[in-house]
Each structure stands twice: as C-alpha cells, then as structure tokens.
C-alpha cells in the first residue's frame, strides 16, 4: 500500500493567494495541480513536501487563447476550460497561449491548437492515457521536468516561451532555458508557472539566425513521433519537429528530443544544418543522423544506448517528413 507522508494542505483562491501561501510555507511547500506526477512521487516517498498548495480551483490559469493572430479556419477555441477565446486580429505575429492549469485533455480537444500546431495533438495523443490526461496538467508536466517528458520536447521544437510569476513579478523564459537538470527547472520556490506561449509565426529574432525574411509566403508544419512500449508508458525515445518553408527552402526548423539526454530537449546542431537547406528526404535523413550523434541516451530497462540512438535518428527524420507534408498541405502565411 502506497501512502504519502504526513503533509499540510492549503487551497489557493487566486494566483496572489497561491504566491502568499508559497511565501508563507517556504521552500518545502509544493504546488499541487493535477497531482499525477507529484502524488505518485509522494506515495513512493521520493517527494515529501511539508505543505501542498492546491491550485486546481484557479480558473484564471485554465485557458487556451490566440492573441493578435489569424486563425485560418475562423475557428474558436474548443475545450479550453473557462476562458477559451480567439482574438481575430487578422495579422501574423500572434501567439497561442496555454494556461498552465490546462488539462492535457483540453489541449487535445482544442481544434484551434491542433490546427495551428499539429505537433500538440500528436504528442497529447500519446501522453499517458485518456483518464490521466483528464486531470494531469500542462504546467504540471513541464514543472515535473522528467527527462522523458513529451511536452518538454514538443515545446522545445516549437521554441515556446514560459511565463513565470513570483513575488517580484512576472518573467519569461525560453523553453530551452526552462530545464536546468532532470526534475529541475528555473521555477524557484515561491514562483508559479503561469502560461506557455507559442509564436504563430517564427520570431523576429530568428530572421538574423537564418533564412526567415518576414513571414509572408511561409508555410509551417509540425509533427511528433514517439516509440513507447505500451499505452501510458514513457517514451523509449520521441522526436518533435516544426518546420517553416518558403518554397522548397527551410526558413526555420525546430527539433525536440525526449528521453535521450538531448541538451534542453532540443537538437540544435540538426536545426543549424537544416536552416537554409532544401527540404529533401536526404536532408531530413542527414538531420536525423546529426540529432542522434549529439544526444546522450542512457541504457535502462527500455533499451540499450545504440537502440535509443537509432530511434532518435529515425524518429527525427520521420517527424521532419511529416511536418513537411503538413506544411505543404497547409495555407501560406
């Protein structure tokens, strides 16, 4: 029988209240969202917080929204909890914003999220199982920071931005600076992950790094590929890809890798290789090789190092191929 150790329980009535509670109870307090990572850790006594701050009542953290962007289908957010909304600004440069308390099932049910970033639905379909997805949260998965977590690789591929709030105010951190070590993130004691933001078009900063010269004429596509042993299991390896094409040229690429020890869950060297290259099967295969070379898998009960490296190569290539097909099928910006 697995039972957590003694713990105090506080229920937050607002984000401000949650921050107050975290400040009052100190570094041994933990935020309790869906609890589908924290409670199993507590049952195994791998985590023994003194106080739980339950944020499940905070509707203000449960939403999917599109700001200042164009939704090609004219759709509205679906299943976005309490606050789903689309602001049809009609211009490129908007963001998809996901509240940290959004449940996995809500992201999977959101037609707008799937239309903008198919990778989100690819990944959500293979995270845990349908019942766990009903209650587990996006922010909770990210803050658990398991090295085999699927959304960490997904948001790395999408070059998302995390919004963190603490006593000193709000700050933003790139998805690629979010994780500091296995099970460790930049979210400090006393802080709360509030929101994940994904730029609907490549960020301006990427223009200098590569071939993005304004968003006009770009076609985007994304995909996620995972090999797991059974439903609900962590991946043996998983790869996510986000591509921006202008004609046959890759204007921008994002590649995420999970469970294979990739730095920041990303394959930066493979992205560098693709940026400015032609979108060909050969280049995608080469990118897969580069991604596999630069990751650092460990042997465990899910497989030996060479097998995981093989998966990193193959799944990266497949994700890139599928992202390209989706980009080709979608509308140009």
């Amino acid at each position, binding site marked *: *029988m*697995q*039972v*957590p*150790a*003694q*713990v*105090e*329980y506080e*229920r937050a009535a607002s984000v401000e209240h949650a921050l107050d509670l975290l400040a009052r109870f100190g570094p041994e307090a933990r935020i*309790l969202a869906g*609890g*589908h990572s924290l*409670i*199993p850790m*507590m*049952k195994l006594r791998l985590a023994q917080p003194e106080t*739980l701050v*339950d944020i*499940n009542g905070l509707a203000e953290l449960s939403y999917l929204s599109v700001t200042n962007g164009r939704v090609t289908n004219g759709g509205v957010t679906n299943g976005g909890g309490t606050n789903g909304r689309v602001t049809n600004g009609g211009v490129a440069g908007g963001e998809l914003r996901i509240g940290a308390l959004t449940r996995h*099932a809500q992201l999977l049910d959101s037609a707008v999220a799937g239309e903008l970033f198919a990778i989100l639905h690819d990944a959500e379909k293979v995270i*845990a*199982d*349908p*019942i*766990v997805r*009903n*209650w587990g949260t996006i922010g909770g998965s990210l803050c658990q920071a398991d090295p085999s977590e699927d959304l960490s690789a997904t948001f790395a591929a999408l070059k998302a931005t995390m919004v963190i709030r603490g006593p000193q105010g709000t700050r933003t951190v790139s998805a690629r600076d979010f994780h500091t070590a296995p099970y460790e993130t930049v979210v400090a004691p006393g802080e709360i992950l509030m929101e994940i933001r994904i730029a609907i078009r490549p960020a301006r900063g990427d223009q200098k790094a590569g071939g993005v010269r304004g968003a006009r004429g770009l076609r985007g596509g994304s995909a996620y590929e995972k090999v797991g042993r059974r*439903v*609900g299991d962590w991946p043996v390896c998983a790869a996510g890809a986000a591509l921006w094409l202008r004609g046959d040229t890759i204007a921008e690429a994002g590649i995420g890798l999970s469970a294979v020890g990739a730095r920041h869950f990303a394959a930066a060297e493979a992205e560098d290789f693709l940026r400015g290259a032609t979108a060909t099967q050969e280049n995608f295969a080469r990118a897969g090789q580069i991604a596999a070379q630069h990751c650092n898998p460990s042997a465990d009960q899910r497989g030996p190092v060479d097998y995981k490296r093989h998966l990193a190569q193959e799944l990266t290539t497949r994700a890139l191929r599928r992202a390209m097909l989706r980009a080709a099928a979608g509308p140009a910006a």
Partner: protein
Amino acid sequence: MQITITVNGAVYKREVEPRLLLIHFLRDDLRLTGSHWGCDTSNCGACVVWLDDIPVKSCTVLAAMADGHRVLTVEGLERGGQLDPVQEGFAQCHGLQCGFCTPGMMLTARWLLDHHPDPSPAEIREAISGQICRCTGYENIVRSILWASQHASWGQPDAGGDPVNGGGDPGGAEVTA
C-alpha cells in the same frame, strides 16, 4: 481537516488527513467498496470515479482535492433499482469475469457514451486504453459498451436526469453518520 464531498448525490462530511487518497476515502471512510483499489500507480484504472463530470483515477487524487466537489462511483450508476444500460450491457454481453476492473470500465464507458453516443469499437478501445482487465476480457467489454450505446440511458438528456446531481431523484439527503 474537514471535507464535504457529494458522492452519488449524498453529502458526506468527514474529518480526514490531508494525505488521504480519494479511493481510500470512498472505500474505508464511506464503505463504498464498489470502486476498486488496484495498482496504486494510476496505471490500471480499477479506481476510476467521476470527479465532478470527469473520470479520474482516484488512487492519484487526494480526498482533500475533492472537498466541495461531486463524485460519482459505480454505486451511483443504477437508479431506483434500474441498472444503467452500461451495467445492463456488461450483464448481457458477459463483460466481466473476475469483476475487478468492472467499476472503472463502467464509469469510463458512461462518460464516453454521454459525450460520444455512437462510438466505434476502435473509439471504445481508445477510451478504455488506460484501464487494465487482468482476465484480458477486452473483447466482451467492448461488446458490452457497444450494447449500451444502442440502448437509451437515463443519464442522457432525452431520458432526463443527471447521474451526479440526481436529476429528478431526491438523492441529495445529507448523511452525517
């Protein structure tokens, strides 16, 4: 801490430790032993109950988190001695052997049919993919849920009533024992 939870329409007030899991609250404190405590690791789904209107694995939810909320267990599926079509389907199609996974399977099935009244066998398999039948009787479980999809339920709007709030059934009497 004191919690108040509405289970199958009845209000229960209890003093509990914050670390108490919802499955143990239901089984040990309320003696509602229909929900089964299985793997303890949120894998098997024998402990699935509805928290408000959503199926959850109650071995991974604290009773404290359900304070002020509604819970539906397998005991709440029948009404006035009349089985829910999901229960009837399991009886008609031999959907259980040892019965251990059955309460969780039924609660997931009821939710599926409330939201997707005409599921395909593949959709049913996907819906129950987070639940394990140790007798491996999945074929008959799928058949049972299909049977239920072809029979009207009091849980559906056209038949009236709400399985948690009790609908027309005055099931909200406070239980203080």
